[in-house]
């Protein structure tokens, strides 16, 4: 009986202690004493609690120890002892592998974000950055250079350095630094050119996140310049029809024979400006004349194409102008206005078909657009004629009303002159 009572006492004392000890490590995982010292240190050792709280890893419950090792539950310097597994500052050449310990582990990453890819490390190793790092060049970009460190945000966060809106600027921190890039012998004007491009405008001005930025063409973790043969494939991921037309054109073989990379020959690579019909002309924006001689067969064909394109463009503008005048006069021309979009579509289609460099194909689109524009111009003219007709009608009606009014007035005077039907009657 005594034994039983003692056992019960023992369980009653030990069970709470056991539960306390079991619970303790779980709470210790989120205890991060590192920040208490590092928050007050000077840069680069400074990491404040506010800064770290913004970090996606901190938000997921990870502490400094997840990367740097050590024991963040201790307040003394023992926290950074070798025995506590402290790794100290991570060397640049070790960073990709360190990040990869978790980010290349699909089993581990599934717990946090099952949709996140886990091939970043493998891709990085194929990139120019990764290959150079493997050969001992520690000046190349590693994970933290692009993603940041200690206040690393999720990619979808617009404040993240690798959010599509910020990628170009992040890349430019190294690639636009002439001093830093001197050793690599590559241009440093890519960001400047990109920032004047139609792609940058779409991304930054219009906020279109599907617009291309550096990583769209060059890849992100597997970053490498696209080779001559693959440039067209990069562009065709978005510009499908232009690519299909180019495939059918005589230029494809000619470019291949000359070792030219395709799209970028005419449109440039980083500075892809708004394409215009002037590219077919002989002025400053012209591109055909870079290869073709004035007056040759191709030059004459280009001049014809330009003439038809500007012809349709002019026809659409004429119709627009006429319809605008009619609309401002209060005429109902919304059907013709809507049909103008079809004419504009034909012009856009013709500009896409230009990439086939086949006049008969371009002509089909041009003719379709010209017919619609002519119809709409006529609708505008008819509306203005109708407006004039209405105004004449109004004038005639007002005149008729005035005559009736005068007649009524005269009749009232006439009958009121007669004493029998005078207006006033005795009350």
């Amino acid at each position, binding site marked *: 009986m005594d034994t039983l009572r003692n056992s019960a006492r023992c369980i009653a004392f030990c069970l709470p202690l056991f539960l306390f000890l079991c619970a303790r490590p779980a709470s210790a995982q989120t205890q991060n004493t590192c920040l208490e010292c590092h928050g007050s240190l000077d840069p680069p050792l400074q990491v404040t609690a506010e800064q770290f709280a913004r970090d996606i890893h901190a938000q997921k419950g990870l502490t400094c120890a997840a990367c740097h090792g050590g024991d963040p539950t201790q307040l003394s310097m023992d926290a950074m002892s070798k025995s506590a597994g402290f790794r100290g500052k991570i060397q640049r050449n070790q960073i990709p592998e360190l990040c990869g310990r978790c980010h290349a582990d699909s089993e581990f990453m599934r717990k946090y974000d099952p949709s996140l890819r886990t091939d970043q490390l493998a891709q990085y190793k194929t990139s120019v950055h990764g290959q150079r790092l493997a050969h001992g060049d520690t000046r190349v970009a590693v994970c933290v250079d692009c993603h940041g460190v200690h206040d690393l945000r999720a990619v979808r966060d617009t404040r993240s350095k690798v959010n599509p809106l910020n990628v170009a600027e992040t890349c430019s921190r190294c690639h636009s630094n002439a001093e830093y890039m001197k050793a690599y012998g590559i241009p440093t004007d890519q960001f400047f050119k990109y920032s004047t491009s139609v792609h940058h405008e779409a991304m930054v001005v219009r906020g279109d996140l599907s617009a291309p930025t550096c990583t769209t063409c060059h890849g992100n973790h597997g970053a490498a310049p696209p080779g001559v043969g693959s440039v067209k494939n990069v562009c065709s991921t978005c510009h499908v029809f232009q690519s299909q037309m180019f495939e059918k054109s005589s230029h494809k073989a000619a470019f291949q024979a000359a070792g030219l990379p395709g799209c970028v020959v005419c449109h440039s690579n980083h500075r892809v400006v708004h394409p215009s019909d002037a590219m077919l002309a002989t002025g400053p924006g012209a591109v055909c004349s870079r290869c073709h001689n004035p007056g040759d067969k191709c030059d004459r064909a280009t001049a014809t194409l330009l003439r038809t394109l500007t012809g349709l463009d002019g026809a659409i503008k004429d119709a627009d102008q006429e319809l605008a005048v009619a609309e401002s006069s209060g005429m109902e021309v919304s059907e013709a206005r809507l049909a103008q979009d079809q004419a504009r579509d034909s012009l856009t289609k013709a500009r896409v078909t230009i990439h086939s460099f086949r006049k008969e194909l371009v002509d089909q689109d041009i003719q379709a657009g010209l017919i619609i524009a002519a119809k709409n111009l006529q609708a505008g003219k008819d509306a203005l004629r109708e407006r004039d007709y209405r105004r004449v009608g109004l004038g005639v009606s007002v005149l008729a*009303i005035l005559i009736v009014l005068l007649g009524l007035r005269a009749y009232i005077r006439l009958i009121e002159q007669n004493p029998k039907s005078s207006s006033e009657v*005795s009350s």
Partner: protein
Amino acid sequence: MRLLATARDWMDERFHWAELAAPLKKKTVPLHKLSPWYFLGGITLFLFGIQVCTGILLLLYYHPGANEAFESVQYIMTRVQFGWLVRSIHSWAANLMILSAFAHMFSVVFLRAYRKPRELTWVSGMLLLFLAMGFGFSGYLLPWNTLAFFATKVGTEITGQVPVVGHAMMVFLRGGEDVTGATLTRFFGFHVAVLPGITVLLVLVHLALVQYFGMSVPPGVEKRWEAHPAEARQMSFFPNFFLRELMAWYIALGVLGALAAILPWDLGTKADPFAPAPAGIRPEWYFMFMFQTLKKIPAKLWFVDGEVVGILVFGAAGALWLLLPFFDQVGRGRGRRFILGAGLFALSYILAMTAYGYLAK
């Protein structure tokens, strides 16, 4: 002329036309410097007639339905011969009719034409004005354009704020929880059947009361005439006043034609119930003073919802306004002064809030 006389004789033989027309010949209209205000009621009636005629013509081509209403109005304006004119006149006449009804109402208030024994003439006239506003509200949605769609949404939402019965009223007006094609067919029904039926009956009652009591003489003029009976002047209604009224109608017709030809009523873009509400949603001008008040009223007044307070105040003010003549004899001239003050306040408030609604960003 001979043919006309023969026809008149023919009618007279059978229906004793001369006897029927006798009261009309005897009818007189007081003649004084404020007599021109008498024209306003007739002009409103004339514009109502225009509404009936142009409305019937529009009915020949209009299709009530979310998928066809806009297109049918577009068809009327672009394909139907003089369809643009009929539609523009219908829209402009609606606005001018409400304008002249408002002017008629305030002239009655300031000339004290509502006073005994014409109290019911005032009540029937006020009910006609409410019906005219109902015509405007229901007709505004019929072209099914963006502005009308969202204005109706806002308007019916305001109805939904009325305590207790608000939600049921909103569902009844909308034909469901939202403004949909069901709302359009419902509004069409109100606009072409329910409201015209009630309006025609009330117009007949209003005209019968005007005929029965005759035209009111402003109190100042009446006092002078009582003191000096020799100064009292009357004009025969037919043909003298009628011909003058006819001139006023012709002028209204000219204004209407000019507005329709120079500023044809805009159709806008087709309503898209899934699109976000465009900026600058506002109701027709005659609802603007109420809309602007509800917009500016604080969200909470003490512990009550501000909009609900606004609706209740407008409701109470409307009810008091309807019963205005019954306050005329209260106290020794206090009721009269109250009515004059209320009239001046109502007129300035409507003008100021309407202007604020259009000028405020």
